[in-house]
């Protein structure tokens, strides 16, 4: 189990190297190398997760080590899907290192199993976890695309076409991709929250218990809801949408980590270390 995760991490790191070499040298073969290394990493990672699920009898999300690993898997997987649809080759330099970093970070955390309540077995739980993680991965990518958009827009506005100008795709493609990530991410996040409510009702007997994680997830959801609403009604696009997507990622990260370190609540144990 341990060796599989270590190999996965190494694949992600190598993929990162491939993408960075591609950034500088612009050789198609390097991009392909990065892509296939990441693909191999995701496949191996999937094997590890399936094994972990079988061994534990439920999704392996009992401590920070395991949740981070799942987050890394979701991020890499969503990136590959986005990549196959929109072909923003350069996005790899955001996604691959992020995934690798998450995995390295995860491997440094002691994996003492936290309290083992019998709350993991339900289908609601599985849907809740998967849709929240995959949705958040898509939103994290939306932030990455937003960052690329800002860089490219700045280059065009300032008429200083530096290192990135020719390496980044058109503003239109970046904006469209960001929008797609946002729609997918928001939809899954919504599904995740709803199943979370249903599940909470089943386990604790109430939909909403003012748990800090719940509150912050609600805030995150509202933020993205506003962004999506503005896009659909007044056609917010480009710079403003990109900045919002980046702010969204910051809030998302706080919801994921910050809440657990600063507050206590019934989500705390999943990210305890």
């Amino acid at each position, binding site marked *: 189990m341990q060796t599989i995760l270590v190999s996965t991490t190494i694949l992600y790191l190598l993929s990162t190297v491939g993408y960075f070499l591609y950034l500088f040298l612009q050789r198609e073969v390097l991009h392909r190398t990065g892509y296939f290394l990441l693909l191999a990493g995701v496949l191996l990672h999937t094997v590890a997760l399936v094994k972990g699920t079988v061994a534990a009898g439920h999704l392996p999300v009992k401590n920070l080590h395991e949740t981070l690993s799942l987050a890394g898997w979701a991020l890499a997987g969503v990136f590959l899907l986005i990549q196959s649809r929109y072909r923003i080759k350069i996005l790899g330099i955001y996604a691959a290192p992020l995934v690798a970093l998450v995995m390295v970070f995860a491997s440094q955390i002691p994996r003492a199993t936290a309290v083992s309540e019998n709350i993991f077995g339900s289908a609601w739980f599985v849907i809740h976890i998967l849709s929240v993680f995959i949705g958040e991965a898509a939103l994290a990518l939306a932030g990455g695309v937003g960052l690329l958009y800002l860089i*490219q827009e700045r280059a*065009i*506005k300032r*008429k200083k*076409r530096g290192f990135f*100008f*020719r390496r980044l*795709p*058109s*503003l*239109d*493609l970046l904006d469209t991709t960001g929008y797609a990530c946002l729609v997918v991410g928001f939809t899954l996040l919504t599904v995740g929250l709803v199943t979370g409510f249903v599940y909470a009702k089943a386990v604790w007997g109430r939909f909403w218990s003012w748990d800090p994680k719940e509150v912050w997830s609600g805030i995150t959801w509202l933020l993205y809801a506003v962004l999506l609403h503005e896009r659909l009604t*007044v*056609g*917010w*696009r*480009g*710079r*403003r949408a990109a900045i919002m997507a980046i702010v969204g990622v910051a809030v998302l990260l706080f919801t994921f980590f910050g809440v657990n370190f600063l507050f206590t609540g019934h989500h705390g144990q999943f990210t305890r270390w």
Partner: protein
Amino acid sequence: MADIVLIGLNHKTAPVELRECIAFNPEQTAEALDGLHQSPQISEVMVISTCNRVEVLLVADDSGICVPLVKQFLANFNRVSLGEFEPSLYVLQNDEAVRHVFRVAASLDSLMVGEPQILGQIKEAYRLATRKKTAGVILNRLLHRSFSVAKRVRSETGIGDHAVSISYAAIALGRKIFGTLEGKKGLLLGAGEMAELAVEHLISHRIGQVLVANRTFERGMALAERFGGRALRFEEIGDCLKETDIIISSTGASDYVVTRDMVKAVMRSRRNRPLFFIDIAVPRDIDPAINRLTNAYVYDIDDLKEIIEENIEDRQREAVAGERIVDEAVIRFRQWRESLDVVPTIVALRKKMEGIVTEEIERTVGGLNHLSDNDRTAFKRMIPSLVNKMLHDPTLFLKGDGGHGDRAVYLDMTRKLFRLDE
């Protein structure tokens, strides 16, 4: 071995007045090919004539005789005295001539390094030479090599990547903003050669519709008709900004034609779709403050010129990598030419035959266990005499000029027949 010779002048050695006098149109080129090929000294010849160069490429047994001959031919043919243009001529031979052809085809020797037209012009010149049957084994090979060198240089270096004209630079920027220009709406304000060229480029990128607004409505109508678009009154510009995506402006107005407030007013009804202004006019037509609005981009003539200068520098840097590809190709071509010599061809042919005979005899003899050692030696001795007998006539034929004139044809044929180059 025959020499490859190139005699010519180009934009670096001769001013345009001189190049005009020497240039050949296609009919004249055909005529010149016939004239030059009549000379017994010249076994193969082709003529490349573009607005930047006139070059005669030929294969001759004795370059010492044919160089003055060709120079005189150029003078007589164009009715110019030789003294007038002789100082501008360059004469290159063998490796240097080969390198030059490769560099020209790869657009490394062009006035605008990396411009793509030259390859087509060379292909055309070569086609004419093949039709006139003045290109033989060596020119065929040389030109085909030069096409693949040009292709390699183009695909492996960034020599053709960067736009080096105002309208191309504008298109490249547009594509960085919109991704594709297909279906976008363009608006031409005013008129002018550069602006009209830019609109034509937009149309070739399948832009959706072109609107034209001109102070004189009739002039606008004429232009709109030419671009298959629609003419507008000048006062309608503000409204029309709601619809269009790319605005090319080139009016003689002394004030801004499009102001920041005009753009700001339409942004909401455009649902913030990006607007790209290309301002070619001096004094400027488009308020530069528009560039500070979100989703609006303004490039004026100086911005575009700056891009072009950067791009030219980039191309020159990429050209260095192109030279390396050319160097490799020159060496390979020399190796091929050397192989066309009689001795290496005969040696290679013998080696191939010996290999086949030895292998077959050994296999057969190896299976016959009843043979004595003497028998085996006898069989071995048979090998060289068999090869000698078989190759006697071909060897004589190749050494003796192959009967008619061009030995290279037969050497090349021999190498192909027996696959000696693998």
